[in-house]
Protein backbone atom coordinates (compact mmCIF):
# COMPACT_ATOMS: atom_id res chain seq x y z
CA UNK A 1 0.00 0.00 0.00
CA UNK A 2 1.26 3.44 -0.85
CA UNK A 3 0.27 6.81 0.50
CA UNK A 4 -0.74 9.62 -1.80
CA UNK A 5 1.87 11.88 -3.36
CA UNK A 6 0.96 14.89 -1.24
CA UNK A 7 -0.37 13.03 1.78
CA UNK A 8 -0.16 14.30 5.32
CA UNK A 9 0.49 11.30 7.50
CA UNK A 10 0.31 11.78 11.29
CA UNK A 11 2.42 8.68 11.89
CA UNK A 12 5.23 9.96 9.70
CA UNK A 13 5.00 13.36 11.38
CA UNK A 14 5.30 11.80 14.85
CA UNK A 15 8.20 9.57 13.80
CA UNK A 16 9.92 12.44 12.02
CA UNK A 17 9.62 14.71 15.05
CA UNK A 18 11.02 11.96 17.26
CA UNK A 19 13.83 11.29 14.78
CA UNK A 20 14.66 14.98 14.52
CA UNK A 21 14.79 15.20 18.31
CA UNK A 22 17.11 12.18 18.37
CA UNK A 23 19.32 13.75 15.70
CA UNK A 24 19.31 17.07 17.60
CA UNK A 25 20.37 15.41 20.84
CA UNK A 26 22.85 13.17 19.03
CA UNK A 27 24.54 16.00 17.20
CA UNK A 28 24.57 18.09 20.35
CA UNK A 29 26.21 15.30 22.30
CA UNK A 30 28.52 13.78 19.70
CA UNK A 31 29.50 16.82 17.66
CA UNK A 32 28.81 20.17 19.31
CA UNK A 33 29.69 19.35 22.90
CA UNK A 34 33.15 17.84 22.27
CA UNK A 35 34.10 20.27 19.51
CA UNK A 36 32.98 23.33 21.45
CA UNK A 37 34.84 22.03 24.49
CA UNK A 38 38.02 21.71 22.44
CA UNK A 39 37.50 25.14 20.89
CA UNK A 40 37.05 26.65 24.34
CA UNK A 41 40.15 24.88 25.63
CA UNK A 42 42.11 26.17 22.68
CA UNK A 43 40.76 29.68 23.26
CA UNK A 44 41.84 29.44 26.88
CA UNK A 45 45.26 28.17 25.86
CA UNK A 46 45.63 30.96 23.29
CA UNK A 47 44.58 33.58 25.84
CA UNK A 48 47.04 32.12 28.33
CA UNK A 49 49.81 32.15 25.75
CA UNK A 50 49.03 35.74 24.86
CA UNK A 51 49.07 36.75 28.51
CA UNK A 52 52.35 34.93 29.03
CA UNK A 53 53.84 36.60 25.98
CA UNK A 54 52.72 40.01 27.21
CA UNK A 55 54.19 39.32 30.63
CA UNK A 56 57.44 38.18 29.07
CA UNK A 57 57.56 41.30 26.92
CA UNK A 58 56.95 43.52 29.95
CA UNK A 59 59.66 41.70 31.87
CA UNK A 60 62.07 42.00 28.94
CA UNK A 61 61.36 45.72 28.67
CA UNK A 62 61.95 46.22 32.38
CA UNK A 63 65.15 44.21 32.20
CA UNK A 64 66.30 46.18 29.18
CA UNK A 65 65.74 49.50 30.93
CA UNK A 66 67.52 48.17 33.99
CA UNK A 67 70.47 46.93 32.00
CA UNK A 68 70.68 50.14 30.05
CA UNK A 69 70.78 52.11 33.28
CA UNK A 70 73.40 49.80 34.68
CA UNK A 71 75.44 50.05 31.52
CA UNK A 72 75.26 53.84 31.56
CA UNK A 73 76.33 53.87 35.18
CA UNK A 74 79.18 51.48 34.48
CA UNK A 75 80.33 53.60 31.57
CA UNK A 76 80.26 56.68 33.76
CA UNK A 77 82.18 54.88 36.47
CA UNK A 78 84.79 53.64 34.09
CA UNK A 79 85.18 57.12 32.63
CA UNK A 80 85.52 58.50 36.14
CA UNK A 81 88.09 55.84 36.96
CA UNK A 82 90.02 56.68 33.83
CA UNK A 83 89.98 60.38 34.68
CA UNK A 84 91.15 59.71 38.21
CA UNK A 85 93.86 57.38 37.05
CA UNK A 86 95.05 59.85 34.44
CA UNK A 87 95.07 62.64 36.98
CA UNK A 88 96.95 60.53 39.51
CA UNK A 89 99.42 59.40 36.90
CA UNK A 90 99.95 62.97 35.76
CA UNK A 91 100.47 64.07 39.32
CA UNK A 92 102.81 61.22 40.01
CA UNK A 93 104.83 61.86 36.88
CA UNK A 94 105.04 65.53 37.73
CA UNK A 95 106.26 64.63 41.19
CA UNK A 96 108.79 62.21 39.83
CA UNK A 97 110.07 64.74 37.33
CA UNK A 98 110.27 67.45 40.00
CA UNK A 99 112.09 65.12 42.35
CA UNK A 100 114.47 64.08 39.63
CA UNK A 101 115.18 67.71 38.83
CA UNK A 102 115.73 68.50 42.51
CA UNK A 103 117.97 65.47 42.90
CA UNK A 104 119.93 66.41 39.84
CA UNK A 105 120.33 69.96 41.10
CA UNK A 106 121.48 68.66 44.55
CA UNK A 107 123.98 66.35 42.98
CA UNK A 108 125.35 69.14 40.77
CA UNK A 109 125.73 71.43 43.76
CA UNK A 110 127.37 68.69 45.80
CA UNK A 111 129.76 68.01 42.98
CA UNK A 112 130.58 71.65 42.67
CA UNK A 113 131.23 71.91 46.41
CA UNK A 114 133.36 68.78 46.29
CA UNK A 115 135.29 70.20 43.43
CA UNK A 116 135.81 73.44 45.26
CA UNK A 117 136.97 71.62 48.35
CA UNK A 118 139.29 69.47 46.32
CA UNK A 119 140.66 72.53 44.66
CA UNK A 120 141.27 74.24 47.98
CA UNK A 121 142.96 71.24 49.41
CA UNK A 122 145.12 70.87 46.38
CA UNK A 123 145.90 74.54 46.52
CA UNK A 124 146.68 74.21 50.20
CA UNK A 125 148.91 71.21 49.70
CA UNK A 126 150.60 72.87 46.82
CA UNK A 127 151.14 75.93 48.90
CA UNK A 128 152.79 73.82 51.71
CA UNK A 129 154.99 72.03 49.25
CA UNK A 130 155.94 75.18 47.47
CA UNK A 131 156.68 76.90 50.75
CA UNK A 132 158.93 73.93 51.79
CA UNK A 133 160.60 74.09 48.43
CA UNK A 134 161.06 77.82 48.72
CA UNK A 135 162.57 77.47 52.18
CA UNK A 136 164.89 74.80 50.84
CA UNK A 137 165.88 77.00 47.93
CA UNK A 138 166.31 80.02 50.15
CA UNK A 139 168.47 78.05 52.63
CA UNK A 140 170.66 76.94 49.78
CA UNK A 141 170.84 80.48 48.53
CA UNK A 142 171.24 82.19 51.88
CA UNK A 143 173.27 79.45 53.34
CA UNK A 144 171.61 79.36 56.57
CA UNK A 145 168.63 77.78 58.15
CA UNK A 146 165.38 79.53 57.76
CA UNK A 147 162.68 78.90 60.27
CA UNK A 148 159.46 78.43 58.35
CA UNK A 149 157.42 79.81 61.24
CA UNK A 150 159.44 82.92 61.42
CA UNK A 151 159.36 83.55 57.75
CA UNK A 152 155.81 82.54 57.00
CA UNK A 153 154.95 86.07 55.95
CA UNK A 154 157.87 86.27 53.67
CA UNK A 155 157.11 82.94 52.06
CA UNK A 156 153.51 83.73 51.47
CA UNK A 157 154.44 87.00 49.87
CA UNK A 158 156.83 85.08 47.69
CA UNK A 159 154.31 82.60 46.63
CA UNK A 160 151.76 85.25 45.88
CA UNK A 161 154.31 87.17 43.87
CA UNK A 162 155.29 84.01 41.98
CA UNK A 163 151.76 83.90 40.78
CA UNK A 164 148.48 82.35 41.22
CA UNK A 165 148.36 78.62 41.01
CA UNK A 166 145.37 78.75 38.84
Amino acid sequence: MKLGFLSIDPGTILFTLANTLILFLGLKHFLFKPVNKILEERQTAVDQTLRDAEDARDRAETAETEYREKLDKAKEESAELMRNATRKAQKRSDEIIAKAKADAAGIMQQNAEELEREKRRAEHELRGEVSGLAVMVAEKVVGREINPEDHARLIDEFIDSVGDVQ
Partner: protein
Amino acid sequence: MAILAIPKVLQGPEELSVDGPKVIKTFDIFGFQINFTETVVLEWIVIGVILLAAFLLTRNLKVRNVSKRQAIAEMAVEAITNLVRDTMGKRWLWFTPYIASVFCFSIFGSLISLFGVRAVTSDFSVLLSWAAVTFILITATKIRYGGIGGYLKGFVDPIPVMLPINILSEVSTPAAMALRHFGNIAGGSIIMGLIYYGLANLSHMIHLQVPVLTVGLPAVLSLYFDLFSDFMQAFIFIMLTMVFISNAGPADDEAPQTN
Protein backbone atom coordinates in the same frame (compact mmCIF):
# COMPACT_ATOMS: atom_id res chain seq x y z
CA MET B 1 14.79 -12.58 -32.09
CA ALA B 2 16.74 -11.89 -28.94
CA ILE B 3 19.49 -14.41 -28.42
CA LEU B 4 20.52 -12.96 -25.12
CA ALA B 5 17.87 -12.32 -22.54
CA ILE B 6 18.44 -8.80 -21.25
CA PRO B 7 18.00 -8.70 -17.46
CA LYS B 8 14.98 -6.69 -16.43
CA VAL B 9 17.04 -4.26 -14.36
CA LEU B 10 18.91 -3.17 -17.50
CA GLN B 11 15.79 -2.55 -19.57
CA GLY B 12 14.97 0.78 -17.99
CA PRO B 13 11.79 1.84 -16.25
CA GLU B 14 8.65 0.21 -17.63
CA GLU B 15 6.18 2.46 -15.93
CA LEU B 16 6.15 5.80 -14.20
CA SER B 17 4.00 6.37 -11.18
CA VAL B 18 3.71 9.43 -9.00
CA ASP B 19 2.78 8.38 -5.50
CA GLY B 20 3.75 8.66 -1.87
CA PRO B 21 5.87 6.47 0.36
CA LYS B 22 5.10 2.81 0.93
CA VAL B 23 3.34 1.91 4.17
CA ILE B 24 5.23 -0.95 5.78
CA LYS B 25 2.95 -1.53 8.73
CA THR B 26 -0.03 0.13 10.31
CA PHE B 27 -0.42 0.22 14.06
CA ASP B 28 -3.77 0.72 15.71
CA ILE B 29 -3.14 2.79 18.82
CA PHE B 30 -6.27 3.83 20.73
CA GLY B 31 -8.26 3.78 17.53
CA PHE B 32 -5.74 5.93 15.68
CA GLN B 33 -4.20 4.51 12.54
CA ILE B 34 -0.46 5.11 12.86
CA ASN B 35 1.40 4.35 9.65
CA PHE B 36 4.97 3.11 9.67
CA THR B 37 6.25 4.09 6.22
CA GLU B 38 9.45 3.58 4.27
CA THR B 39 10.22 7.25 4.95
CA VAL B 40 10.79 6.46 8.63
CA VAL B 41 13.16 3.61 7.83
CA LEU B 42 15.12 5.89 5.50
CA GLU B 43 15.17 8.52 8.24
CA TRP B 44 16.79 6.02 10.56
CA ILE B 45 19.43 5.25 7.98
CA VAL B 46 20.08 8.97 7.46
CA ILE B 47 20.29 9.62 11.21
CA GLY B 48 22.57 6.64 11.63
CA VAL B 49 24.92 7.90 8.91
CA ILE B 50 24.98 11.46 10.29
CA LEU B 51 25.56 10.40 13.88
CA LEU B 52 28.20 7.88 12.84
CA ALA B 53 29.98 10.61 10.87
CA ALA B 54 29.74 12.99 13.84
CA PHE B 55 31.00 10.26 16.15
CA LEU B 56 33.95 9.36 13.89
CA LEU B 57 34.86 13.00 13.26
CA THR B 58 35.13 13.76 16.95
CA ARG B 59 37.35 10.88 18.02
CA ASN B 60 40.63 11.90 19.72
CA LEU B 61 40.03 15.62 19.81
CA LYS B 62 43.17 17.54 20.64
CA VAL B 63 43.92 21.18 21.41
CA ARG B 64 47.08 21.11 19.31
CA ASN B 65 48.15 19.15 16.22
CA VAL B 66 44.61 18.64 15.00
CA SER B 67 43.93 15.81 12.59
CA LYS B 68 42.10 16.33 9.31
CA ARG B 69 38.99 14.75 10.80
CA GLN B 70 39.06 17.15 13.72
CA ALA B 71 39.63 20.09 11.38
CA ILE B 72 36.53 19.11 9.40
CA ALA B 73 34.47 18.77 12.58
CA GLU B 74 35.68 22.13 13.89
CA MET B 75 35.07 23.86 10.58
CA ALA B 76 31.54 22.47 10.38
CA VAL B 77 30.70 23.44 13.94
CA GLU B 78 32.20 26.91 13.57
CA ALA B 79 30.51 27.53 10.23
CA ILE B 80 27.03 26.60 11.47
CA THR B 81 27.60 28.42 14.78
CA ASN B 82 28.65 31.59 12.97
CA LEU B 83 25.68 31.29 10.63
CA VAL B 84 23.26 31.05 13.56
CA ARG B 85 25.00 33.88 15.43
CA ASP B 86 24.95 36.17 12.41
CA THR B 87 21.38 35.38 11.45
CA MET B 88 19.68 34.99 14.82
CA GLY B 89 21.94 36.67 17.34
CA LYS B 90 23.80 35.37 20.35
CA ARG B 91 20.79 34.44 22.48
CA TRP B 92 19.78 31.81 19.94
CA LEU B 93 23.14 30.02 19.99
CA TRP B 94 21.63 27.11 21.94
CA PHE B 95 19.50 26.55 18.84
CA THR B 96 22.54 25.77 16.66
CA PRO B 97 22.36 21.94 16.97
CA TYR B 98 18.74 22.00 15.80
CA ILE B 99 19.66 24.04 12.73
CA ALA B 100 22.56 21.69 12.07
CA SER B 101 20.23 18.70 12.53
CA VAL B 102 17.64 19.95 10.06
CA PHE B 103 20.35 20.98 7.60
CA CYS B 104 22.08 17.58 7.67
CA PHE B 105 18.78 15.71 7.81
CA SER B 106 17.50 17.60 4.79
CA ILE B 107 20.67 17.24 2.72
CA PHE B 108 21.26 13.57 3.44
CA GLY B 109 17.52 12.86 3.30
CA SER B 110 17.47 14.32 -0.21
CA LEU B 111 20.77 12.80 -1.34
CA ILE B 112 19.68 9.31 -0.27
CA SER B 113 17.61 9.29 -3.46
CA LEU B 114 20.92 8.86 -5.32
CA PHE B 115 20.85 5.28 -4.04
CA GLY B 116 17.61 4.64 -5.89
CA VAL B 117 15.22 4.97 -2.98
CA ARG B 118 12.61 7.62 -2.30
CA ALA B 119 14.08 10.82 -0.89
CA VAL B 120 13.05 11.39 2.71
CA THR B 121 12.30 14.99 1.76
CA SER B 122 9.91 14.02 -1.00
CA ASP B 123 7.50 13.05 1.77
CA PHE B 124 5.43 16.11 2.60
CA SER B 125 4.86 14.95 6.20
CA VAL B 126 8.58 15.25 6.92
CA LEU B 127 8.77 18.86 5.78
CA LEU B 128 5.53 19.60 7.58
CA SER B 129 7.06 18.29 10.84
CA TRP B 130 10.05 20.61 10.57
CA ALA B 131 7.85 23.52 9.53
CA ALA B 132 5.66 22.78 12.55
CA VAL B 133 8.69 23.05 14.82
CA THR B 134 9.49 26.41 13.22
CA PHE B 135 5.87 27.53 13.65
CA ILE B 136 5.81 26.49 17.32
CA LEU B 137 9.06 28.35 17.99
CA ILE B 138 7.82 31.46 16.18
CA THR B 139 4.67 31.45 18.28
CA ALA B 140 6.57 30.69 21.49
CA THR B 141 9.00 33.52 20.81
CA LYS B 142 6.19 35.98 20.12
CA ILE B 143 4.43 35.00 23.34
CA ARG B 144 7.66 35.09 25.32
CA TYR B 145 8.58 38.62 24.31
CA GLY B 146 5.09 40.07 23.77
CA GLY B 147 3.02 38.10 26.26
CA ILE B 148 -0.15 36.16 25.42
CA GLY B 149 -2.08 39.41 25.07
CA GLY B 150 0.50 40.94 22.79
CA TYR B 151 0.53 37.80 20.66
CA LEU B 152 -3.29 37.75 20.29
CA LYS B 153 -3.39 41.49 19.71
CA GLY B 154 -0.98 41.00 16.81
CA PHE B 155 -3.78 39.25 14.90
CA VAL B 156 -6.06 42.31 14.91
CA ASP B 157 -3.25 44.64 13.99
CA PRO B 158 -3.58 47.26 12.55
CA ILE B 159 -7.41 46.86 12.25
CA PRO B 160 -9.65 43.96 13.31
CA VAL B 161 -10.72 43.33 9.73
CA MET B 162 -7.21 42.04 9.14
CA LEU B 163 -7.84 39.05 11.45
CA PRO B 164 -8.40 36.42 8.73
CA ILE B 165 -5.49 37.71 6.69
CA ASN B 166 -3.21 37.70 9.72
CA ILE B 167 -4.21 34.14 10.62
CA LEU B 168 -3.61 33.13 7.02
CA SER B 169 -0.22 34.79 6.96
CA GLU B 170 0.70 33.13 10.26
CA VAL B 171 -0.23 29.69 8.94
CA SER B 172 1.16 30.24 5.47
CA THR B 173 4.66 30.81 6.79
CA PRO B 174 5.34 27.17 7.76
CA ALA B 175 3.10 25.85 5.00
CA ALA B 176 5.05 27.75 2.35
CA MET B 177 8.37 26.57 3.79
CA ALA B 178 7.28 22.95 3.78
CA LEU B 179 5.70 23.11 0.34
CA ARG B 180 8.70 24.87 -1.20
CA HIS B 181 11.11 22.21 0.02
CA PHE B 182 8.77 19.34 -0.78
CA GLY B 183 7.93 20.71 -4.20
CA ASN B 184 11.55 21.16 -5.21
CA ILE B 185 12.72 17.72 -4.18
CA ALA B 186 9.63 15.75 -5.17
CA GLY B 187 9.27 17.74 -8.37
CA GLY B 188 12.91 17.17 -9.18
CA SER B 189 12.53 13.45 -8.67
CA ILE B 190 9.45 13.40 -10.92
CA ILE B 191 11.30 15.29 -13.62
CA MET B 192 14.25 12.93 -13.36
CA GLY B 193 11.85 9.97 -13.47
CA LEU B 194 10.18 11.39 -16.58
CA ILE B 195 13.52 11.91 -18.26
CA TYR B 196 14.65 8.36 -17.47
CA TYR B 197 11.31 6.97 -18.62
CA GLY B 198 11.29 9.03 -21.79
CA LEU B 199 14.86 8.17 -22.72
CA ALA B 200 14.24 4.48 -22.05
CA ASN B 201 11.17 4.52 -24.30
CA LEU B 202 13.12 6.41 -26.94
CA SER B 203 15.82 3.72 -26.79
CA HIS B 204 13.22 0.99 -27.23
CA MET B 205 11.64 2.88 -30.12
CA ILE B 206 14.89 2.72 -32.07
CA HIS B 207 15.15 -0.99 -31.18
CA LEU B 208 17.90 -0.82 -28.62
CA GLN B 209 17.70 -3.72 -26.19
CA VAL B 210 19.49 -1.76 -23.48
CA PRO B 211 18.29 1.85 -23.04
CA VAL B 212 21.71 3.39 -23.69
CA LEU B 213 20.20 6.84 -24.24
CA THR B 214 19.61 7.02 -20.48
CA VAL B 215 23.37 7.25 -20.04
CA GLY B 216 24.73 10.78 -20.03
CA LEU B 217 21.98 13.39 -20.10
CA PRO B 218 20.31 12.36 -16.81
CA ALA B 219 23.66 12.55 -15.05
CA VAL B 220 24.05 16.19 -16.04
CA LEU B 221 20.50 17.07 -15.10
CA SER B 222 20.88 15.15 -11.88
CA LEU B 223 23.66 17.54 -10.89
CA TYR B 224 21.01 20.26 -10.71
CA PHE B 225 17.93 18.35 -9.60
CA ASP B 226 19.66 16.17 -7.04
CA LEU B 227 22.87 17.83 -5.85
CA PHE B 228 22.34 21.57 -6.29
CA SER B 229 18.65 21.57 -5.50
CA ASP B 230 19.19 19.41 -2.41
CA PHE B 231 21.79 21.76 -0.97
CA MET B 232 19.83 24.86 -1.92
CA GLN B 233 16.59 23.64 -0.39
CA ALA B 234 18.29 22.56 2.83
CA PHE B 235 20.00 25.93 3.09
CA ILE B 236 16.85 27.89 2.25
CA PHE B 237 14.88 25.90 4.80
CA ILE B 238 17.27 26.58 7.69
CA MET B 239 17.71 30.22 6.66
CA LEU B 240 13.95 30.76 6.66
CA THR B 241 13.64 28.95 9.98
CA MET B 242 16.30 31.16 11.54
CA VAL B 243 14.99 34.40 10.07
CA PHE B 244 11.35 33.77 10.97
CA ILE B 245 12.14 32.70 14.52
CA SER B 246 14.58 35.52 15.26
CA ASN B 247 12.23 38.08 13.70
CA ALA B 248 9.49 36.91 16.05
CA GLY B 249 11.49 38.33 18.95
CA PRO B 250 13.04 41.74 19.49
CA ALA B 251 16.41 42.56 17.96
CA ASP B 252 19.34 41.10 19.84
CA ASP B 253 20.45 44.19 21.71
CA GLU B 254 16.95 44.98 22.99
CA ALA B 255 16.42 41.49 24.31
CA PRO B 256 16.08 41.22 28.08
CA GLN B 257 18.87 39.22 29.66
CA THR B 258 17.69 35.67 30.12
CA ASN B 259 19.33 32.39 31.08
